[in-house]
Structures are given as structure tokens and as C-alpha cells.
């Protein structure tokens, strides 16, 4: 027997509409403080909300993407509370009738697929942003006030931080696929709160649920959950319990810290917002949205296997991110070799993305250049290792491969005369290696080839060098 961790997530996603939820102010990220504002989104007396139909459409898209049912009749409610980032003393949100109910996301575990069910998806408006200065002032920027959000609430069905991570990855990938959000955690367009507790399977004892906020990356979220899991278990072991509270993740200290205790259930005095009529969603509209929805990851993966003869694993990786799958398909438009392109992307390209924790669209790389690079290697103009170096340069500088090859003189040397000269020189300098080889030490060849490649600045065709070294030693 042991312990069972129970994790539920609440995810806020800013919708990538052109304008805000209830006014025509721009929904662009950033901007000079308090410039994306109007009487409506700063809640001036007398102003009234007019709902953004695109925001509703995006919420429906998300609902379809996550297999939720869409409520034909829904409404906007007021969640009443006071805070300095909240302009009206209430947030326009949804209480008892969310736009989407139910649904699930499938996560792929090592040996099975697990369905994580959703409780609901509702629409609401974002609040302003507070900045606490060092001299104790609080500055408020209302550019974000009134930005449309969906809140996705899961059932508490994840049992490890890893499952939660897989869920978040899949959620983000799907939201990006259906084009409703850019899901940038660093810009706050995807925010995640975790509810976690642990059950002692032997005694049945349960810890109180801890809510973790202020998670700025999936990595941080996983670390925070791992930290909490341990904390809950060690308290259980001592026969103690956790406090019902909200904690935040401190990235510097690598630990969660108490924010506030949850004394009883907050009463938000929900009531319908009479400033807007109830929202009626006709089935025809849902079907129209469904039929215009982009291909979802699962369908795309199946198509990649079929159309490009890729392995299930490769297809899965390439379609895990919408941007990556598009990048792949764009690249093979320029070079008709899906397997080779897949290998390059799965190898060096992904490694680079992982190292730098970026998405493909945030890099200098473009499909046409990658295709050119692959052609250069495929046609033996440069060798594979040079290709890797050029790719690095492409990431760093954004130059196209031809230019890099030309500027750095990297065109592969296939001219036997030129290679012969270098081999001659290296052999002259390394008499001992020749003797070693003749004495049966095959490793000596490797050393010599290395020296020759180095002398050619990596440009010599390695197969040719290999063949010529042996031939020329034998000639001596």
C-alpha cells in the first residue's frame, strides 16, 4: 500500500480575439499602461457591456476540441468581489450554466491512454494587472481588463505530476490547433492553478486540498506539484494534515509558500448580469463552427502515418504541436522526402527547441531554408556534420544555408586531388599511426581520418577520405 495523489486543474486561457470581451478595445498583449482602455473596460459609470461574438465562438471551438457538450442556452453572471484590479466590483463570468459542460482530454501514458474528464468550460473577462513597486506603491494597468478568457476546470483525475504535465501539453497543443489562443504562459495567456491532495491508501486518511497559484511554466507546475506531493505525504506520515489554503510557487526558493488560508467558502453573490440578454446558441452555428474547425491532432497524426509513411511515434511527435506539424508539411513542399525531413526535425531541430524551451514559430528557422539545407546534404554538397553546423548557424543568425556555406567555404571537398594533398600531409606527419595500422591497430585509421577532416575544416567528404587513407597507406 502507499499513497495516492489527486490532482485537479483550473486553467485560464486568454482568447486571441481582435477585440476585448465587451468593448472594441484591442486585445493585443502589452502596450503602454492604460492605453488599451475605454469607458466599458475600465467600468466607468454608465458604461455597458456588448458581448464579443467571436469570444463565444472561440469558447465553442474549445468545447468541440475537448468533446464537451455546448449548452444551447447560457448567460453571463456577475461574480461580486472587491479587488483593485477589478474595475466594476464584479467580474462578468458564468455561474450555474457554463457555455460548455463535460468533455475530456486523452493523455498518452507509457502503455495506455488515460481520459482526463473536464467539469466545465466557461467564459469570463480578465482583470487588470497590479505591479507592486519597491517603495510600497501599487500600480494598476487596465490594458488586460476585459480581455476574454475561458476557464477550463478538470475533474480531479490526475494522479501524478507527470499526468498533469501531459494533460497540460495536450491541452495547449489542442488550443493552439483550433486557433483560439497563443497559450503563452510567459505572457499570461495561459494560466494554471493546481488543486492537489494525497490519500493514504492504507488508512484512508486524506490531506486537505491545497491550491497552488502563480505557476509560470509547465516545468514550474510540475516542480510545484512534486514539492506539494512530498509535503502532503510527509505530513500524513507524521499523522498530521495540511491546512486548507492557497500557496504560490516560488521559483527561486524552489518551494511553495502560503498565500492565504481559505476560511470557509467564499461567497461571490452570483447573480445574472441584466446588462446582457441570455445567450442562445443554435445548433446550426455549432455545426458551422465544427465544420470549419482545423484538423485536430489525432486526425493529423493518423494522416501523417498514412500519407507520409512515418512511424506512429514520429507522427505523434510531429503533430503534438500545430506549428511543428505545419512546419513539417511546409518543408516537404520544397523537398519531396518526408522521411528525411522527419529525421532532421525529430533530431537536431527538436533538440534545439527543447534546449532553448522555445516553439518552432519563435525561431529563425523557416521551412524553405531547412529544405535547402537538407538538399545540400542529400546531394553531398556538404556532409552531415557540416549540415548540423549550418543548422545551428541558421538558428543563430537566420541566414539561409547557401549563404552560410558560401561565407564559411563549407562546400564539401569531393575533388580527389585536393583531398589527396591533405591526406599526404597528414600521413607524413603521423608515421607512427601508419605503423600502428600496419600492425593491425584499426583504430589508427579513425585517428587519421579525424586529423584529415580537421585539416579540411570538416569539408572533405568523409567516405572519400576513409577510402583514400587506406588506399594511400597501402600505396606506401
Amino acid at each position, binding site marked *: 500500500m502507499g499513497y495516492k495523489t489527486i490532482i485537479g486543474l483550473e486553467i485560464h486561457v486568454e482568447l486571441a480575439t481582435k477585440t476585448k470581451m465587451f468593448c472594441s478595445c484591442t486585445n493585443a498583449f502589452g502596450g503602454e499602461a492604460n492605453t488599451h482602455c475605454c469607458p466599458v473596460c475600465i*467600468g466607468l459609470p*454608465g458604461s455597458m457591456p456588448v458581448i464579443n461574438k467571436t469570444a463565444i465562438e472561440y469558447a465553442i471551438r474549445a468545447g468541440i476540441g475537448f468533446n464537451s457538450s455546448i449548452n444551447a442556452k447560457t448567460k453571463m453572471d456577475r461574480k461580486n468581489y*472587491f479587488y483593485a484590479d477589478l474595475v*466594476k*466590483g464584479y467580474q462578468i463570468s458564468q455561474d450555474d450554466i457554463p457555455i460548455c459542460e463535460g468533455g475530456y482530454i486523452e493523455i498518452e501514458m507509457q502503455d495506455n491512454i488515460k481520459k482526463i474528464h473536464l467539469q466545465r468550460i466557461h467564459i469570463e473577462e480578465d482583470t487588470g494587472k497590479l505591479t507592486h513597486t519597491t517603495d510600497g506603491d501599487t500600480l494598476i494597468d487596465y490594458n488586460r481588463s476585459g480581455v476574454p478568457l475561458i476557464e477550463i476546470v478538470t475533474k480531479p483525475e490526475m494522479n501524478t505530476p507527470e499526468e498533469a504535465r501531459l494533460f497540460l501539453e495536450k491541452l495547449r497543443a489542442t488550443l493552439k490547433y483550433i486557433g483560439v489562443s497563443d497559450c503563452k504562459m510567459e505572457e499570461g495567456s495561459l494560466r494554471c492553478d493546481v488543486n492537489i491532495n494525497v490519500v493514504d491508501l492504507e488508512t484512508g486518511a486524506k490531506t486537505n486540498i491545497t491550491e497552488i497559484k502563480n505557476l509560470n511554466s509547465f516545468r514550474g507546475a510540475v516542480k510545484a506539484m512534486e514539492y506539494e506531493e512530498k509535503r502532503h505525504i510527509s505530513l500524513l506520515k507524521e499523522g498530521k494534515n495540511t491546512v486548507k489554503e492557497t500557496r504560490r510557487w516560488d521559483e527561486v526558493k524552489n518551494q511553495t509558500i502560503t498565500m492565504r488560508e481559505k476560511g470557509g467558502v467564499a461567497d461571490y453573490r452570483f447573480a445574472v448580469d*441584466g446588462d446582457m440578454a441570455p445567450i442562445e446558441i443554435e445548433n446550426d452555428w455549432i455545426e458551422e463552427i465544427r465544420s470549419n474547425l482545423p484538423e485536430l491532432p489525432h486526425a493529423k497524426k493518423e494522416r501523417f502515418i498514412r500519407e507520409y509513411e512515418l512511424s506512429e511515434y514520429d507522427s505523434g511527435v510531429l503533430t503534438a504541436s500545430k506549428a511543428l506539424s505545419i512546419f513539417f508539411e511546409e518543408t516537404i513542399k520544397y523537398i519531396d522526402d518526408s522521411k528525411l525531413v522527419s529525421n532532421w526535425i525529430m533530431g537536431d531541430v527538436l533538440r534545439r527547441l527543447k534546449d532553448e524551451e522555445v516553439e518552432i514559430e519563435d525561431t529563425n528557422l523557416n521551412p524553405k531554408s531547412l529544405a535547402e539545407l537538407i538538399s545540400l546534404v542529400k546531394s553531398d554538397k556538404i556532409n552531415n556534420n557540416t549540415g548540423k553546423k549550418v543548422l545551428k548557424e541558421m538558428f543563430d543568425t537566420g541566414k539561409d544555408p547557401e549563404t552560410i556555406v558560401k561565407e564559411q567555404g563549407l562546400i564539401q571537398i569531393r575533388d580527389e586531388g585536393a583531398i589527396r594533398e591533405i591526406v599526404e600531409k597528414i600521413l607524413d606527419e603521423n608515421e607512427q599511426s601508419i605503423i600502428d595500422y600496419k600492425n593491425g591497430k584499426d583504430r589508427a585509421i579513425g585517428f587519421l581520418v579525424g586529423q584529415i577532416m580537421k585539416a579540411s575544416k570538416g569539408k572533405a567528404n568523409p567516405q572519400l577520405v576513409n577510402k583514400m587513407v587506406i588506399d594511400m597507406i597501402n600505396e606506401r
Partner: protein
Amino acid sequence: MDIVKLSALEIREKIYNKELSARDVVKAHLEQIEKKEKDIHAFISLNKEEALKSADKIDSKVRNGEELGVLVGMTIGIKDNIVTKDSKTTCGSKMLENFHSPYDATVIETIKKSDGIILGKTNMDEFAMGSSTETSYFGDTKNPVNMELVPGGSSGGSAASVKSNEVTLSLGTDTGGSIRQPASYCDVVGIKPSYGLVSRYGVVSMANTLDTVGVFGRDVLDAALMLSAISGYDKKDSTSVKSPNGTVIIGKDVKKVDPTEYIKGMKIGVPKEIFMEEIDKRVQEKLNKAMKVFESLGAHIEEVSLPHLKYGLSTYHIISTAEISSNLARFDGVRYGYRAKEYTTLDELYVNSRSEAFGEEVKRRIMLGTYYLSKGHGMDYYKKALKLRTLIIEDFGKVFKDQDIILTPTSPVLPFELGKTKKEPLTKDLTSLFTSPVNLAGLCAMSVPCGTIEGLPFGLQIIGDKFKEANIIRAGLGFEGGMRNGL
């Protein structure tokens, strides 16, 4: 010619005919204000410079033969909870004592486009909560009919300004009777339109599912003219209605006709509940007389029933305070309005600012409303009230299947003396017994002068079905004519 006594229609005609300039009209009203205001105190702020400027603009339009708007030359008072760029909007509260809106309400834009001339912002009960204009932070307004009396409320300043000839027309707001009751007390005409007919954009919310913007005039035609001008769909107000039947309430070419022409064949329901309740007998008698006027003009009168009328006040009380508690939450001292000088935490900033800047009546209603939206018993009351609201709507629906209009007294309580109800806040609520159900059902209604009871003005309420403004205006015109003819 006494310009300030002219009707809106007469002023318009005289400007068309170049008998009068808009500047003459404005100057005459400013002089009247100068004369009356120290006694009446109908205004919180005046708009003299802007008013003269608009007058000059109109006069140059007249000279150049340009097309003139429907409100041309009409001087207008605006209740101070309707936001205006040109002057402060206080809502009669210390909270917004120095608040300057950066935008005009839709109705203000409409008035400006229609060549109406805004003379100032009128006094009101704080945030439109009250029925005597005595909860205003800026002092009482006197009733021009009798200076001892309250003008009614909450739109007391708007009613008084029209009665005292300081302006020709005015705008008010009506959430539970706040136009009709002061109209009744000040012996003028007040119309509360159907919910959704006039844009609320820029009107500071009190109880937003009940709030409406309406008008005051010294006769029915003036009021109807003004209402026609400000009606219509506004894409900035999601609760305004696209094309309700009869949006054009009154055309440009109205003429005074024989009152019987309006009334003949009209079907009128009078709720029996009015005579069964403990209603002032004098008020009941007066209603009987009004019914006789309609009958003699050719109307069919029938007794009808509004069985849930008796729950109207409680239902109104619960729903309105609940909405008030939410709508007034934005006045927190953070972005605009009053901010307490002393505070150390955010909570203290809220508590101190709101405690210092809101008056008693406002605080009372916020607290009650907060309770009604709270989990447990409070929410039970609120949910019950929502159900009763539906029943009240159904009551009216049944009556309007057979009747064109419903008649009631505007207020069961006759105009009272200033200061009298300050100590008994709940008796004031009784004044909206017959008016608040109309708001709950989103209907239209008018208060039209119906003589006096022992020298105190008495108003008759004419209720029409939703977006049937044309019916109440016909009835009002007919009744007014009948009264004038000594019926």
C-alpha cells in the same frame, strides 16, 4: 410673450418661423433660472456657456436655411445620473462630487444631434434612491407648486425645473417610479417608457433590470415629443430593442385635436385591488372621477385584477437592492470619485471611502442587497422575488390581452412636507406601490396631472403594454384635453 411658458412645440414653431431665436429662448430660461433657482434648487450644475453656444449654432443654421433637428430650441434639464462631457455627473452623491465623465450618454448625443439645448444637470436623490430628492448630497429641491412640499423623487430636480419654467423639458430616470411620482407631485407630465425603448448607455445604473430613461414636460405632447426623439435602438446598450412596434411615437406634424378622437373605443382596465387595499379614500375618489372623464370621452372601462400587485413592493425592494449592491460596487475610491484620506490597507481604502461618501439611504440599500445575494436565507428571498416578478409580468399580460391601458393613481401617498419622512424611511417606499410593478414588468406608463386633493397635486397613472407607448400617449392626450374642457 412669456417665452418660458411656451410649450416645446410652440418654441419649435416660432424658431422655424423666425419669430424667436434660440438665443432668446436660452436667455429667457437662464433669467428664469436666476429668478427661481435660489428658492427651488432644481439644479446641481448649470451649463450656461455651452447652452449659449448651442443656441448660436442653431441660429446660424436657421439663417443658412439648414435642416433643423426635432428638438430645436428646446431647453432641457438632465438628471444628474446621466453622464455628460460638458459638466460634472454627481448622481447627487458626495462619492461623485467632482466626477467628470469623458463621454456623453447616448441620449445626450441624441439630444445634441437633435438641436436640443442642455441647460444643466438636475438634483436627485442620491444614486436615484429615494422618493423626495431629500437624500441628495447637494441639498433639497422644493416643490414649485408649494414650497413646503417635497418635489417627489428621485427625479425631483427634473420635475421641479419643468414646473418652474426653468426649462421646457427634462430627462429623468425611473426604476420604481422615480419619474412618475415626482411628475405627479409637481403637477407635470412624466413618461416612463418600456424597458429597452430608450438607450441606457451612459446612465449610471441603480437597478439595471428596472432602470429606464424617461421624460418630463408640462403637457403630454411635449413629453411625447421628447420621448420620440430619444427612443430607438443603440448598439452600445445590449438591452435596447431593435425595432419595437411604434418606436415612432409621434410624428413631426402633430396637431391638437378633439380629445374624444383619441379616446373613443379605447378599452381601459382598472384593477379592483386599488379599491380593496387600505388606500386613502380621497385617492380612490379621485380615480373614480378620472374614470368618469374617460367614460365621457367614449372609453370602455372594465374592472380587472392584478392578484400579485400586493407583492409588488417587496419584490421590487428585494430585486432592486440586490442589483444596487452590485451596481454600486464600482464606486470604490480606486479609479475615480471620492477617496478617503485615511487608509493603510486596500480594504480600509474601500471601507473608508464608501463609508464617508455614501449617504444613509444608499448604504442601507447596499447592505440589504448584499444580504439578498448571499448564500442561505438571503438568496432564498432573492430567488422567490424573481419568481414573483414572473407572476407579476403574467398578471399584466393577462389584462393586456383585453385592455389597451390600465389606470391607477400614480402614488397612493399625496405630496408630503419636506423633512417629514427623513425619520421614517420605509413609509416613503409606499409611494411606489403602483409604479414599481410597472418597472418589474418592463411596461410603459405615464403620470398625467389630474387636479388636486385639498390643494395637493394628484397624478393619474396610465399604464400601457410593452412598447405600446402610442396607447398611453393617446390616452394622455385625450384625458388632458378632457380635463382642459372641464370634464
